């Protein structure tokens, strides 16, 4: 009854549609960031080329991924370094 009265006078507590809208917004940020494996592979190859100019990297341990946190999306690359090069091989 109290709820009804407060509703009539427009003092609504956070409505469930706002919760739905916010959750939907976040889940779509993640859904829309899905990149096809082919694109990830191309990106990976390009990254290797660039980094190899400056460093010796461990190709086996190299990981490139798109990861979604609760409210953001990031490109995570884990690239183990075997050694640095003295001068860039250009």
């Amino acid at each position, binding site marked *: 009854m109290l709820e009804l009265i407060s509703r*009539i*006078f427009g003092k609504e507590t956070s409505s469930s549609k*706002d919760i*739905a*809208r916010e959750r939907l917004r976040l889940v779509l940020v993640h*859904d829309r960031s899905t990149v096809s494996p082919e694109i990830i592979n191309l990106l990976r190859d390009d990254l290797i080329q660039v980094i190899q100019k400056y460093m010796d990297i461990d190709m086996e341990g190299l990981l490139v991924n798109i990861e979604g946190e609760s409210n953001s999306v990031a490109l995570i690359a884990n690239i183990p370094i075997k050694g640095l090069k003295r001068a860039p091989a250009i």
Partner: protein
Amino acid sequence: MKSKVLVITSGKGGVGKTTTTANLGTALAMLGKKVVMLDTDIGLRNLDVVMGLENRIVFDIVDVVNGNCKIKQALIKDKRFEGLCLLPAAQTKDKTAVTPHQMKNLTNELRKEFDFILVDCPAGIEQGFKNAISGADDAVVVATPEISSVRDADRIIGLLEAAGLSNSKLIINRMRSKMVKRGDMMDIDDILDILSINLLGVVPEDEAIVVSTNRGEPAVLETTSRAGEAYRRIARRITGEDLPIDSQEDSINLVDRFKRILKLAR
């Protein structure tokens, strides 16, 4: 008039694709258009029962694409409208029984005879979906104001764009204005903001849909059905008429007005 192939799709199941196809098909026929409805949900056909035509099926869509019969032999004429036909799905095959190429040929063949070809798409994003959209000029995306349905609609809109269908329009189905006013259901603007797609119409939740489906008589034939009225308006919009989106229930607006007066008085 140039004929148009419209695919009715949603991603999620149970949001009203088949009901929408049956009602829009019937409403377009009521406007004097020649309409054929294609059920592409092979293995799970239902458009026939929603239309009340299940007893007349002899051949199906798989028979047609395999050349077992002529298109004319498989088309079921509606019992109410001269210009309305149904091409039923096969019930004992699966989605791989038809290819996108065959669907494209089929819809092109049907263009010669009909003004509108409505393709009822199965749920999901696999082979059945790919078949259904392959011959389409435009897509109608059906979604209910629920988080799961809107999420799937977003995915479908992306897939449609990737397939070259970038002019999709949205029907929001089963809208419950009382819940919207209470703040417990996403409203039209919430959904349009999220999906960034043009709105074709809003269909209210209506018990008449259950009753009409029980009988096999589309709700657009029922003059008192609010959902039927909404579908009739959508059909007119599809034919190019510029009709405003239906305002919500009047009784609710009265309550709203009363609220506003109370707020002013405080």
